């Protein structure tokens, strides 16, 4: 994880409820390498594909359910 940008992004995601241990449901996927729409704590967040991929790497260590792709 990058120290500079990564830190801010991580905190941002946490504010939206995307934190270790959270229950996440994948709702939809955009075309052409588009974003992933996830539902967490009853609210929906679109995450860019690159970002979603990076978070999953982060998140797998921290007991996220594997089905959120």
């Amino acid at each position, binding site marked *: 994880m990058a120290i500079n940008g990564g830190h*801010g992004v991580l905190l*941002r995601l946490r504010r939206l409820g995307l934190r270790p241990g959270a229950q996440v449901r994948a709702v939809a996927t*955009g075309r052409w390498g588009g974003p992933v729409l996830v539902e967490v704590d009853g609210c*929906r967040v*679109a*995450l860019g594909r690159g970002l979603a991929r990076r978070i999953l790497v982060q998140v797998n260590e921290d007991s996220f359910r594997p089905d959120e792709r």
Partner: protein
Amino acid sequence: MSADGLRVVRRVVLVGQPNAGKSTLFNAIVGYRAVVANFPGTTVEALRGQASIGGLRAEVVDLPGTYSLLGGDVAERVTRDFLLSGEADVIVQVVDSSLLGRSLELTLEVAELGLPIVLCLNMMDEAEHKGIRIDWEKLAALLGVPVVATVASRGQGLVDLLAAIPQARPVRRPPYTADVERALSQIREAQSSTGRFGDHRAAQLLSSGAPVDLALKEPVERARRELGEGRGEDPGVILSDERHAQAMRLFEAVATVGKARVGWREKADDLLMHPVIGYPLLVLALMGLFGAVFWSGDVLEGLLSPLLDTVSGQIGAALGAGPLAAVLRGAWDGLAAGVAIVLPYLIPFLFLLALFEDVGYMPRVGFLLDGLMHRIGLHGKSVIPFLLGYGCTVPAILSTRILEDERDRLVTAALAVMVPCAGRTIVVMGLVGRYVGPLAALLLYLGNVLVIALVGWVLTRLVPGEGPGLILEIPPYRQPRLQNLLGKTWLRLKGFVVLAWPLLAVSSALLALAEALGWAGGLNLGVRFLTWPLGLPSETGVPLVLGILRKELSLVMLDEALVGGVAALTQAQMIVFTVFVLFYVPCLATVGALGRELGWRRTGLVVLATTGLGLVLALLARVVLGA
């Protein structure tokens, strides 16, 4: 504070997470001032209004939505800096009650400022829809602040809220875990002058380090290191997790979650955000928008034009001849053209745009187009400024504040300038749409999108760096309210009526005077270096120059300047003229907004580049059309 425990409140600020309904509440309290829409980041600057609080006049400030006080984007920094300026007597935190748990994290962070707070549990109807019941009296007791339940969109609870503001208190904050408290007190002790907002500053320093005061560098680093090593986590993450845990404890103590209702709003996304069906629906929606504007504009114009022509004829006859009469007639013609050409397209367009915003379709478009936007080096959030750009370029440029990355902001703002605003839509619809045909108008729009994409592709390769990618909250669909749609249409239309109408009248009168004195030819000759290569008649010169003031002036003045009105142009000339108007120098208001947001050097570059581009594309159109 007065003897009865009530506070004298001079300034109240509305703080809350994006899309919690702050602006709706603000409008309900102070009258329709702020544009409200259903996407995160509608408000990007502090808006001020007046209200009577505790029998005294107080200022109410609506701040941009923020997830935290860390200042992730420009809009969030506006909020943080305003709170730290010390101008606020009372903070009203507006909460989307259906997202109470998450919102309480912000409450706990804002509480560190130590300012008196009122918690406004807004959108109680949404919470009920989701099956969430909140014991707000218990929440008030736990936090030690007044808690008021509201549904701002229906005006419910507003009286209670205003009455609660003088009773605001600082939040009784639960303590952090011992190691975090220890780190915080280390930093607090190192701060030589405690000053205001000491708790907040200590938490900020612990979270992100980098103190401005170099004397604090060492103690802050030590506190961060000790806390971080103890937990094996980044101190910022630790603080965030601590607040989250506290917020969840509060939430569980005061809320019960039952069964959510599922209606059309939950099901609509299955279609509208579907990876296959979503896209044709998007195209249909946009075609529907422009089709409806074109059709209703055509009908309205057909009704209005003959009426105004009759009046103009009578006024002309009454005024008689002479230079003064010519000037007065010119002024009237400008006003009349404003009514006949501009309003028929502007009103339906602004209304439908408002409808799109309020339903909540904008962030969906951002989601659908994120993949395509990556092709030009941006991401889906940039779609929101682009879509707003179809209304007016100024708010589009301001809305780039929702972008976290500086480079994305720069490129998006530069590209948003080229999105045809309502003023340019008037030119496209009123000239090409009306005289050449709707298909040609549609092609111009598509061509415009293509050019923007190409320029974007080039720009993102010239300006290095890649943003972190899309993080966009997709709010639930909301039932649009007619009152808000009309209010917003009026608020935006007012810009035209107040600013453009006088300009139209004055420009038109000056043009008439110039013609009466025989100066118009000279002015037109001055711009001949532009109009000649484009194959446009000399009379188009002044209208094009006036378009720098406002884009729709170009068309109105063109109608005034040409003998026989705009119909005197050939179809090819109309298209060349419109292509040039679509791209050349953004209007003055846009230049001003760009200058403030990007700096004047970059703004100069944008002005030069767009004008060059407009010239090249118009020349290209001339060659292709053989004009």
